[in-house]
């Protein structure tokens, strides 16, 4: 395959199967997109993103792992990492291969393009083909196909029964208009209406379009971004190779804006306690002679056994907060570090040993949330993952909400691991309540969703979604009932046996502050 590589130029945006080992250490050849190329000591390396795999698995691979036989070239416009259609963060590529790809390769495409369910099928009526044909000549600036010129005069395109006027796009938008799928193109054309072009801001749910050329600052509240304003090629790629934190070496999952000069280092050293970033072991050693912290620089508000929680004010302790955020960003895709840490509190969970309080995970929380968020970002550091610490963090966050007397929900979007953890926590918490319900005067035990929410501090919507997910809500004889199947009960009991780590509310020493009265975050 290496010889193939030399003959064919692989460019960014190419797609091809790439060898990777799965968890069972078996070879698999998932389709991947080349995001970047580099040469290290004469060897070509390719940064690949496995389609339909999370970005955290993206990696640099050597040419021998590429299946050159099934190489798909990117479309002309694929170089710009803009979104096409619905594929979102995932790289654009041969959605309409018949246009760009040479006929010879055409037969390859169906084999290797497992069309993602939501992707290219335009939600247009049967007139799709015509509209597409009609749109293209108008959009492209010298009409490329003579044969299509006869279609040009068609002034309107009918989509979904509504006639839309085609307005010639402004010069700056042409590229964009060209690379999109048909339905997006129509959107773009709409935006190009003179009166709306300048001030157009896409509705929040149209996240795909929010980043087309107009840099917009993310919203001020919260700490997660759901829009794609940061989704350029730089932030799509991991920039830190390895982080050494205490006794651990972590391989970052995502981009993090550590000082750029440190991104070239093979290892970035962090002080385990203050999380300061250092370029070398020597510097770390020097730093440790000066750093006398043995715990996160905040007040300890919970301690049971070796587990402690520290509360850090993002305004009062900027240095630590920022260092923590930089570290967390390595493992949280949607976290944004756009703004300062002032409006957040950071709850750092630590495990004690004779060296000090070691950070295990943390969650951040807005001092005042307008949307009932009780968690902004939440992370268990990779070495501690899959050992129940995540659930402990979540539990702690709801304990705080209980003290505050509020219900809360994590800030969206959730990551895959976040969703699994929260679902797991919600399920166990709700099931715990349901199982503990005792028959009242010989009647069926009953409970309202609001009651569940109040007891657990889990927001009502999350309770409903969990009940649904667990398939507990049933409509029976004119009313809704909750049903507990045997599998659910068994599964729950097994899970609860494994759940050793619990938060003890008695060990929590926490008095919520009314931040609105302070006038400061």
């Amino acid at each position, binding site marked *: 395959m290496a010889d193939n590589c030399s003959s064919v130029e692989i460019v960014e945006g190419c797609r091809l199967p790439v060898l990777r080992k799965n*968890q069972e250490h078996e070879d698999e050849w998932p389709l991947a997109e080349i995001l970047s190329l580099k040469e290290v000591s004469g060897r070509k390396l390719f940064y690949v993103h496995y389609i339909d795999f*999370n970005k*955290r*698995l993206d990696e640099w691979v050597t040419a021998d792992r590429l299946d050159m036989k099934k190489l798909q070239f990117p479309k002309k416009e694929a170089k710009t990492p803009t979104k096409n259609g619905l594929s*979102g963060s995932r790289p654009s590529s041969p959605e309409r291969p018949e246009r760009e790809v040479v006929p010879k390769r055409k037969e390859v495409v169906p084999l290797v393009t497992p069309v993602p369910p939501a992707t290219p099928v335009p939600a247009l009526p049967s007139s799709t083909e015509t509209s597409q044909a009609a749109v293209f000549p108008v959009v492209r600036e010298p009409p490329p196909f003579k044969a299509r010129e006869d279609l040009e005069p068609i002034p309107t395109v009918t989509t979904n029964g509504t006639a839309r006027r085609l307005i010639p796009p402004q010069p700056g938008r042409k590229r964009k208009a060209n690379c999109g799928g048909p339905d997006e193109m129509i959107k773009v054309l709409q935006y190009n209406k003179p009166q709306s072009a300048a001030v157009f801001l896409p509705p929040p749910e149209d996240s795909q379009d929010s980043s087309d050329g107009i*840099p917009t600052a993310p919203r001020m*509240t919260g700490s997660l971004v*759901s829009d794609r304003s940061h989704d350029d090629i730089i932030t799509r790629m991991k920039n830190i190779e390895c982080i050494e934190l205490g006794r651990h*070496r972590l*391989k970052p*999952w995502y981009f993090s804006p*550590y*000082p750029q*000069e440190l991104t070239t280092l093979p290892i970035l050293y962090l002080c385990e306690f203050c999380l300061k*970033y250092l370029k*070398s*072991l*020597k510097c*770390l*050693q020097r730093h*440790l002679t*000066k*750093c006398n912290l043995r715990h996160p620089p905040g*007040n300890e508000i919970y301690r049971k056994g070796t587990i402690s929680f520290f509360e850090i004010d993002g305004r*009062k302790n900027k240095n630590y907060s920022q260092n923590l955020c930089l570290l967390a960003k390595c493992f949280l895709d*949607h976290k944004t570090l756009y*703004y*300062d*840490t002032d409006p957040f509190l950071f709850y750092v969970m630590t495990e004690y040993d*004779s*060296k*000090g309080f070691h950070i295990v995970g943390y969650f951040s929380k807005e001092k005042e949330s307008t949307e009932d968020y009780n968690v902004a970002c939440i992370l268990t*550091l990779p070495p501690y993952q899959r050992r129940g610490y995540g659930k402990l963090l979540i539990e702690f966050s709801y304990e705080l909400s209980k003290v505050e007397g509020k219900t809360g929900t994590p800030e969206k*979007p*959730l*990551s*895959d691991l976040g969703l*699994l953890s929260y679902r797991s926590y919600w399920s166990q918490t709700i099931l715990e309540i*349901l199982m503990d319900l005792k028959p009242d005067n010989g009647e069926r035990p*009953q*409970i309202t*969703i*609001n009651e569940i929410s109040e007891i657990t501090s889990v927001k*009502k919507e999350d309770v*409903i*979604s969990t009940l*649904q997910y667990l398939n507990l*809500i049933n*409509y029976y004889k004119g009313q*809704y*009932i909750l*049903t507990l*199947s*045997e599998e659910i*009960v068994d*599964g729950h009991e*097994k899970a609860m046996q494994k759940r050793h780590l619990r938060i003890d509310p008695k060990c929590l020493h926490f008095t919520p502050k009314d931040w609105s009265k*302070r*006038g400061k*975050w």
Partner: protein
Amino acid sequence: MSKLSFRARALDASKPLPVFRCEDLPDLHEYASINRAVPQMPTGMEKEEESEHHLQRAISAQQVYGEKRDNMVIPVPEAESNITYYDSIYPGDYKMPKQLIHIQPFSLDTEQPDYDLDLEDEVFVNKLKKKMDISYLQFEEMIDRLEKGSGQQLVSLPEAKLLLKEDDELIKEVFDYWSRKRKNSKANSLIPTVKQEKRDGSSTNDPYVAFRRRTEKMQTRKNRKNDEASYEKMLKLRRDLSRAVTILEMIKRREKSKRELLHLTLEIFEKRNVMSDFGGEVMAEVLAERALVRPQIIPLVPLTNQYRHQDHMDLKDYKSKPEKMEIPRQKRKYEKKQKVLPLSSGSSHHSGPVVFNAKDLNQYDFPSSDDEPFSQLHSGSSEAEEENDPDGAYAFRRKAGCQYYAARQDQAGGWPWSGPWEGGLAEDRFRYSLTTLTVPRRCLGMARRRVGRGGRVLLDRAYTDYDNVFHGLDPEMLDLPPPASPPASFASTSETNTSVRSSSSPFKDPVSSSSSLDLSQILLNIKSCRWRHFRPRTLPLHELDEAHPLFRRLSRVLKRPRSASAGGRPCAWEVSDKQSNKSCDLSLFSAFTAEQYQQHQEELALMHKQQLEQAQLQQHANSTANSTKSLANMLDQASAQFAASAVVTADQLLALKTKDDLGPGGGVNGVIPPSGVYKGLHLSSTTSPSPATPAPPTTTLTSTLLHPSTTTSAARNNNGTAHPANTTTNATATTQVLLGNNSLRLGVPAGKRIHAPRTLGATMSTSALKLAHAATANCQKPKVATASASPLDMVPRETREQDKPALNSLSENTVAMEVT
């Protein structure tokens, strides 16, 4: 399926839900199909991530098995936890406190340096340790300070010395090392820091910029403003304090050098004592030797002083700067009118109390910190000082050896023009002048001219008892030549004349004002320039044709745009009474039409020819304007002399220049007179007595000032420097003249004249061009002139330094330089 027919009610969160075990409800599956009635809740994930392979697999595995299987978890990049040296670098002696840890505010603010020594530094420090005493921490502290002291620009060594507390040698070593390291590093700081937001907003999309300040309103608005205000205040306070530190530092330095000076003086004194040099002879000898060795740098201030005192009369006059603050403000107004008075009366100093400045006597005193002006702290250089001083080099400075007299209070009033409150008569004829309109040609009586909006000229008329007499005045009579040409020194302006006359004739003579006037008496008065008589005069066309930018400058400086009554022609106000008698024929061109203009152009061409011929004839003749009465002659005479002087004076002027360098000629050398009227005349009058002065300057006096030859005469005063510029001026439609080295910019884009009549705009410059061509064609001289121009050109550059003050005065006085 049949049960689908009804719609399930919405799920009510506040309605109790009975909890069943599935085994209790065997028929539940029959209802299963309508379970979908509960709306599906969103997962809260990004859509496209929701479909990711590993998540879907994990979810389905959970649903199938009820719990996670190890091989069904979402794979993540590996993490190791086997750092072998971990135990060695982190001490393991930490005891958990019994109590919950509570952080004291500010307990975290340790004074530890943020900079951490790396391997390279270690090598350096170890090497340095052999020579000096330095610890790692000390080194880190120094680098830390240097880094934090550097913003966009690196700290310099002197700054570093202020910043660091160590001894100089160590600072030097570390500073050098740091500079080198800093230069080699690509990062903008040796202490790695997260990229900061740029103020210009260019970093909005930089992915490496993080933790931007939230500038917009937050959810909490309370006290937000206060926060910001106090933050700003803190910033200001910080800045102010750091300034104070700087100032103190400088004071320290100054006091040190003062001490040093004192010691040196003491030493000299002791040495002299030892040598018994009581008379100071040895001292003088040594000083003289030193002067030879080191060329004395003449400070700018004394030089300007010198200049000032020789010229102070006129400078004082036109700047109307009160020499002493005691002079009441009101008097300034009148100073303008009497300004030639001191000039004409020569150096008649008033007797009065001599005012000394203590500083004159204090020359040998060491200035102490409090009697020193603050500005000197900041600006050691005189240039900076000039900037601070609004008067610049022209601020009044005393000269040693000069006597200064206080203003005489007793003579404050009593002038005919001053108001009754000052004991004057407030006579109208000093405030207004006789005015005659060109069309219709009649005398208006006393009037005062003002410039109104858009350059309109307004005449304020004043009623006098003699109005009927004035109205009967025949303007033609005034065009007769005056009985005698006025002395050269008075030739400048009518204002001058007025004041001169009034100074020479008895001021308080009531006859001229109060006794009944008859026509002839008035006429006589006017003719003898005792009274000003203003007649808006149409400039002869060829004057306008040649109208040099300077002309327009003059017209602006003198505030003489078109007169309302004179058919929109710019007119020479001040000179009119003088000029009129010489230009009687041309002054007839009052109002004219396009045809007339056309006609006139032809005449002009003829005239030019004649003039130039005449110029050739007269170029060696030392003719004065007094001898030639025709204005046409005036014109060519002037231009001829211009050409001639350029040739003749090429070498003479150099001589002149050297001679005049120190005298008032400083103003002559390469300097065009500021107002073109006053100064030029003054200067030429002062230079004319000089034997070295070539003949031409005398003609300056007689040349009509608004005549284009003004330029020439000015240029002549300029030692011909303006000449090359002048020719180019004529040659280019858009004229920019750099006169002397003061770069007076007199740009006259063709066809864009505002004050000049628009119809003439374009042709004016073209005819100017013509003239230039004619000059080159007919004169034969210009060639030489241009040839000689280059050496002449050098003159101003050489004299630049000496002329600087004069040039400055020039720019001060000519306000409207750019005429477009």
